[in-house]
């Protein structure tokens, strides 16, 4: 064995590899993305990016019915997309083990909400393990596959950002060979075909299996009791355990639940016998607190601990100080408050990003735009201000359809999605618009990659996860096939044509769609254009170029804008917004 440092995501991939997983599949989403990427590089299991989380889970389920062990990964909101089959797969049970990773994002580092997916376990009756560091990510992944097969049920592995993207020491065998686990396939209609009569029988079997699971010695071993104080005990799980131990060390007894659904009542009662008073420390919702109270065990938790955002050791210590807890270290900070008047540094579209021009023009053409989830959500921020509403994957079209029934200012509504989002769930809204004759223009910002999560392949890139060539979808073809009269394909860097397309789409009676096709500037092989300069003699200091919000253009001395030659990609958009012809590429001197 060798000690190495792995992130939680790398460790889950390692655990799945060691468990002989046959298929790793998911839809990219921070903080879950690296699990599938790392597993693919380990060579052995079949790995794929799916079109969305529901299709990923369904494929994984089919593979598990065939006898393979499968791991399917998604971010917390992805489980909403996959929820329909999830609830029924719990009734149907498995053949090969099925592990579903939900990567939650408390604090919303890179998400639109911070929903607490532990409730999904309770709601769908799917057992859930919650690791708190990378070693547990390896161990719990292995346990999840075993419990899944032993108790005939899919199993959740619940991660959070601070487990996914934290790196800690693990022990692995670097010589470990890949050994695919495979069970025999048996046709079993009462189990795998959920006619109501079959489902009614499976419903009871599921309940029995969950009861048996909590009595399993291996499942009990996933929980850990640390009795160091007979007066006060803390029940906690996952990342919160780290914060409790860092804040208080061994001062108070701890029950660390690794299996957060179903909760093993015997273990909770045993802990309640050993300590006089119980507190619950958990991030987000009072999930454990509700469940422990439901067992008839008195406890306090959210009375002291915030129900929103991330916790950390100092927040836990400060919160519980109101209940008389004493931390190991008294906080002695350099300052009581953050420094005042520090200009914010929000994320912005990159220099030369092909998404910029659409939002710049949308604002000036006064069109109401519904946005979606991806880099282009940043088009909502000033100075672009190009989005009115944005909520969820695919909502860029479907929410716009509803808005078009009572349009602000009586105008046509535009919906904007990226290419990956278009295939994920944009398509359905585009078809509904034709069906219900909505006054709506679908726009695809097709940058030929899933950019925000770090460049994953999607059905439009012509390549699979492993780099194999595959059929390349084109949004244009799909729009035409589902009933759009005309699809305007425009280059993101041609402002005049893009403006004309937006104007035309606004006015026409035809069913039109716009596809803005220009690759992400961060993709390999995308060439840098000629970098322009500001001609101070021509510049009228009107600041039109600054309103692009390009990180390569800033306000310099004497009120003149300056172009940073290092970060500028020479996309040429600023040249086109300058009315004074003051942004020019220096002519190369020609020898006479």
């Amino acid at each position, binding site marked *: 064995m060798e*000690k*190495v*440092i792995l992130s939680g995501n790398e460790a889950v991939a390692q655990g799945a590899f060691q468990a002989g997983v046959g298929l790793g599949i998911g839809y990219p989403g*921070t*903080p879950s993305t690296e699990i599938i990427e790392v597993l693919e590089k380990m060579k052995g299991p079949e790995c794929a990016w799916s079109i969305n989380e529901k299709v990923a889970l369904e494929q994984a389920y089919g593979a598990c019915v065939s006898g393979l062990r499968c791991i399917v990964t998604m971010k917390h909101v992805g489980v909403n997309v996959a929820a329909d089959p999830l609830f029924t797969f719990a009734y149907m049970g498995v053949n090969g083990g099925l592990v579903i990773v939900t990567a939650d994002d408390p604090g919303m*580092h*890179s998400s639109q909400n911070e929903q607490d997916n532990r409730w999904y376990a309770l709601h769908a009756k799917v057992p859930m393990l919650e690791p708190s560091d990378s070693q547990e990510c390896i161990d719990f992944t292995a346990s999840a596959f075993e419990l899944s097969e032993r108790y005939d049920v899919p199993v959740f592995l619940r991660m959070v*950002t*601070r487990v996914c*993207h*934290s*790196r*800690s*020491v693990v022990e692995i065998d670097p010589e470990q060979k890949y050994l695919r686990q495979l069970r025999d396939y048996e046709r079993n209609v009462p189990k795998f075909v959920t006619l109501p009569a079959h489902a009614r029988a499976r419903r009871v079997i599921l309940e029995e299996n969950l009861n048996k699971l909590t009595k399993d010695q291996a499942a009990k071993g996933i929980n850990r009791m640390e009795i160091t104080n007979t007066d006060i005990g803390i029940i906690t799980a996952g990342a919160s*355990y*780290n*914060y409790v*131990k*860092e804040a208080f*060390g*061994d001062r108070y007894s701890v029950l660390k639940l690794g299996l957060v659904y179903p909760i093993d009542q015997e273990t909770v009662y045993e802990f309640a016998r050993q300590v006089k008073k119980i507190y619950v420390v958990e991030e987000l919702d009072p999930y454990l607190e509700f469940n422990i109270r439901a067992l008839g065990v008195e406890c306090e938790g959210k009375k002291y601990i915030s129900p929103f955002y*991330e916790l*950390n*050791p*100092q*927040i836990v210590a400060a919160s519980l100080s109101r209940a008389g807890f004493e931390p*190991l270290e008294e*906080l*002695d*900070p*350099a*300052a*009581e*408050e*953050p*420094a005042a*008047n*520090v*200009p*914010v*540094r*929000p*994320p*912005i*579209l*990159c220099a030369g990003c092909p998404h910029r021009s659409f939002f710049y023009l949308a604002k000036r053409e006064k069109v109401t735009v519904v946005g979606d989830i991806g*880099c282009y959500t940043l088009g909502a*921020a*000033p*100075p672009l201000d190009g989005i009115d509403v944005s909520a969820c994957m695919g909502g860029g079209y479907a929410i716009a359809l509803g808005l078009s029934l009572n349009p602000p200012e009586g105008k046509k509504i535009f919906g904007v999605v990226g290419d990956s989002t278009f295939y994920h769930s944009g398509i359905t809204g585009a078809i509904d618009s034709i069906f219900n004759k909505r006054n709506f223009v679908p726009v695809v910002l097709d940058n030929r990659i899933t950019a*925000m*999560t*770090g460049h994953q392949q999607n059905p439009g890139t012509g390549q699979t996860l492993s780099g194999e060539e595959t059929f390349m979808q084109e949004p244009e073809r799909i729009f035409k096939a589902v009933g759009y009269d005309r699809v305007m394909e425009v280059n993101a860097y041609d402002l005049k044509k893009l403006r004309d397309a937006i104007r035309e789409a606004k006015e026409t009676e035809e069913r039109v769609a716009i596809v803005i096709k220009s690759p992400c500037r961060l993709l390999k092989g995308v060439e840098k254009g000629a970098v322009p300069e500001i001609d101070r003699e021509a510049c009228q200091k009107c*600041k039109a170029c*600054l309103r692009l*919000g*390009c*990180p390569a253009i*800033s*306000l310099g001395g004497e009120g003149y804008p300056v172009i940073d030659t290092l970060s500028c990609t020479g996309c040429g958009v600023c040249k086109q917004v300058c009315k004074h012809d003051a942004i020019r590429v220096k002519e190369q001197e020609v020898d006479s």
Partner: protein
Amino acid sequence: MDQGVKRIMLAGVGGQGILLASRVLSSGLLKAGFDVKSSEVHGMAQRGGSVVTQLSYGKKVYSPISGAGAVDLLITLEKLEALRYVHFLKKNGTLLMNAREIPSLPILIGAAEYPADIEERLSRYPISLYTIDADREAEKLGNPRVMNVVLLGAMVKLAGLSELVDWPSVVAESVKPAYREINLKAFAAGQNLV
């Protein structure tokens, strides 16, 4: 009971090479026999936004992150980020600041000004402040991208970790062979700056 955990925080702007610096540091600390945990932020936060990595080491480390007022050593690859995160330091903590200024969006578009008095404001905190120009050192070496390793060299010295492990070999293992020599020079240059 002091568990003897030391907490380090690195802050900068997406694309400055924070992750590499933090990973090299983790590898060295593991070699030296410490337990190490670190935390990174990926995704939306990387698009030119403020980026933070935290790292804790000691005999036994539980939490990869620390809250405000609990950090021993703060390293910022940019000046504005020093002001943004200085309250994470403990009293008498150490701030190692790279003298680089990178305007953020409100500054780029003229809606805010880059504060001119960052050093002066920082000097009022009960901390030890070290300012170095790691970008200039990196440029002198011929590759501005090794700025992060210059800072790493300075950071290792300030944290009192220089003798703990053979850092040049840790650095060499962490970068591509073609960039070994320049990164080793960068690390040494950083050590000489503080």
